[in-house]
């Protein structure tokens, strides 16, 4: 089975490629990249005028399966990913039951293989039941397919537990992903602390709630020498903490979400529950700092924190609405927007959603190297489209971009050479 992706502008940041090339795929593997390849008996996909990139990698999503299938499941979540040009996701363990056992890991992997559209790499929980008391069996979970460990949604409150988690994960060479939040400082806050919260009469969450734990975990990474990945950094201070730690040689990486570099807490006005997330949307100064962190390489990956919630969970008073928004289908245009706004070069933008997150998780995806699995996304960077939540593939519709026009989308998504999404 041969497929030829013809005449596209190939961008493969891992190999410093940005030129018009043909790509020959043989049996799901990239066989050749060259300015001109004869089609021969290959099926031809015309990519003229399109960008051809590695399939996108989103290292932070909630597929909600098992346990919360009314919000999303592995079938709909991976379909949404494919529609967004994403071919690999890492799914967080805060399911029911929590992914702290081989049984749950195997369930996720086998359901994804049998019914899913794309690659699913589970993240196991750091502690059993995400209770912060006993370490999960990371060795076995890694063997079963987990690519990282996180109690995402909750911090590991106890400092010693976090230290041991890093030490233990280091044994198996897997990253610990920190959800950095000092709960005693969050108290019962529901949005970013600041003038907007004061005006709306909503209890604020101070930036220090995020930075206190970011600082602690970076120091623990320094102490243990283990790889720490900080999820969804959203404040100027967090970016600065990571920047300084990297300068010191601490093994730390971090990610930022599109909403934290595109939206401020002004979006909450009108008590918009689709602007409620954790960490909360911050002030412009913090948005600027996240953008600067993306530009100078402090931030290693863009990840969506795709967090589907049912309409009933958002259609309530702001204070009791669930945190989070869906993001898989808007990742690409929002990332490309940073290119349009001259924050990132195109190549660097693509790296942030392909090879870099893949490297953090140690998965062999995110490049177009000869011999690599042919996960490929064909992108029209100029196509304008309006976000209609009802037309998205996700089971949930909680997006703050409803009704807005975005630019750029996946035209075709290939998984091991097989088309899993095509836009008409």
């Amino acid at each position, binding site marked *: 089975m041969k497929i030829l992706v013809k005449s596209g502008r190939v961008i493969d940041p891992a190999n410093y490629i940005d030129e018009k090339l043909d790509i020959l795929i043989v049996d799901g593997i990239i066989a050749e990249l060259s300015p001109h390849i004869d089609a021969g008996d290959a099926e031809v996909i015309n990519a003229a005028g399109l960008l051809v990139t590695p399939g996108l990698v989103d290292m932070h999503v909630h597929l909600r399966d098992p346990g919360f299938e009314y919000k999303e499941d592995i079938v709909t979540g991976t379909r949404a990913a494919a529609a967004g040009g994403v071919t690999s996701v890492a799914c967080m363990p805060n399911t029911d039951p929590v992914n702290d056992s081989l049984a749950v890991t195997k369930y996720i992997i086998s359901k994804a293989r049998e019914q899913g559209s794309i690659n699913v790499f589970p993240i196991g929980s750091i502690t059993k039941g995400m209770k912060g008391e006993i370490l999960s069996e990371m060795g076995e979970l890694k063997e079963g397919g987990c690519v990282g460990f996180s109690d995402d949604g909750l911090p590991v409150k106890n400092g010693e537990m976090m230290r041991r988690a890093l030490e233990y994960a280091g044994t198996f060479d897997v990253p610990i992903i920190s959800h950095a939040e000092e709960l005693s400082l969050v108290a019962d806050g529901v949005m970013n602390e600041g003038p907007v919260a004061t005006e709306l*009469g909503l209890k604020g969450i101070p930036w220090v709630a995020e930075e206190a734990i970011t600082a602690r975990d970076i120091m623990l990474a320094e102490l243990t020498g283990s790889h720490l990945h900080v999820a969804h950094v959203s404040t100027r201070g967090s970016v600065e903490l990571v920047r300084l730690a990297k300068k010191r040689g601490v093994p730390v990486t971090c990610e930022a979400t599109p909403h934290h570099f595109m939206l401020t807490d002004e979006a909450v006005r009108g*008590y918009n529950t689709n602007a409620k997330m954790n960490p909360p949307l911050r002030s412009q100064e913090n948005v600027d700092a996240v953008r600067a962190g993306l530009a100078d390489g402090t931030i290693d990956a863009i990840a969506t924190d795709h967090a589907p919630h049912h309409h009933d969970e958002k259609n309530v008073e*702001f204070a009791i609405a669930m945190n989070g928004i869906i993001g898989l289908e808007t990742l690409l245009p929002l990332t490309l927007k940073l290119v349009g706004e001259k924050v990132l070069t195109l190549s660097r933008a693509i790296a942030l959603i392909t090879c870099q997150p893949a490297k953090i998780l140690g998965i062999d995806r995110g490049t177009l190297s000869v011999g690599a699995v042919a996960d490929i996304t064909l992108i029209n960077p100029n196509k304008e489209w309006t976000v209609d939540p009802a037309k998205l593939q996700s089971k949930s519709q909680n997006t703050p971009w409803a009704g807005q026009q975005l630019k750029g989308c996946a035209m075709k998504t290939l998984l091991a050479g097989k088309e899993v999404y095509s836009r008409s």
Partner: protein
Amino acid sequence: MNFNPKHILGIQELSAEELTFILDTAESFKEINTRKIKKVPTLRGKTIVNLFFEASTRTRTSFEVAGKRLSADTINISASSSSVVKGETLQDTAQNIEAMHPDIIVVRHGASGACHYLAERLNCSVINAGDGTHEHPSQALLDALTIRQHKGQIAGLTVAIVGDITHSRVVRSNIYCLSKLGAKVRIAGPGTMLPPGLDRLGCEVYRNIEDAIRDADCVMMLRIQRERQGASLIPSVREYARYFGLNEKKLTLAKKDAIVMHPGPINRGVELASSVADGPQNVILDQVENGVAVRMALLYLVAGGEKLQQD
């Protein structure tokens, strides 16, 4: 001027002209409350539901009296705040009430934004009787009416508001209302009760009561909720009273003819010494009296105002 808003959700959305118009309308209703027969047929046939998710005596009674004096049918519903726990959503509660076709729902709710939420989803008019720590527009209007009554006008005055600013919906509405009407608003309270960005709402922020009330025309004291004690905001009611309570001595810092206000209910000996609460400068009961007139005005304007008479 004609002003018939569909809803009254907050002072923030209203202009100085609209605020003045509401106050003038309230002024014209005041006289009804002193008649022998305190009833006019203005809102006959209108149904007003007082939907209170939080305990309230003063505001609920005031709205009820206001509705009845205008001949509306007023119904009080005390929706337990545990309705969320019981599983009924705010949307469902509201839809059930709307199915009975009220003309106006007056809502008190513990969540900031709850009235906006309802206004977006219901066909009838919504009047905010206090939402969380966001706004309490009728309180600010009755405060403004009281200040106007005693000082003749609001423009040019200095008003000091002292207390738990973070948790006060009264203060937010008052900052908007008084600053729009031309007063200078000063805010004071302990650091734990001053949220960030207050100055952007249009007021000056002080860390001590003395500086805030010096030469003020009006001192408004907020109720200190005793449950805040021990919740790390204040060490004790005793200490709060010492540093932020208003007594006769501190009051001498304000102008000689300054008035003392309080939205009630008062904690005697905490934010207000009894000698001040009962003293000659207090206008607290005028506030309550004006509350009825202001709420009559709001109900009347929301129901259609002058158009009512034409129908």
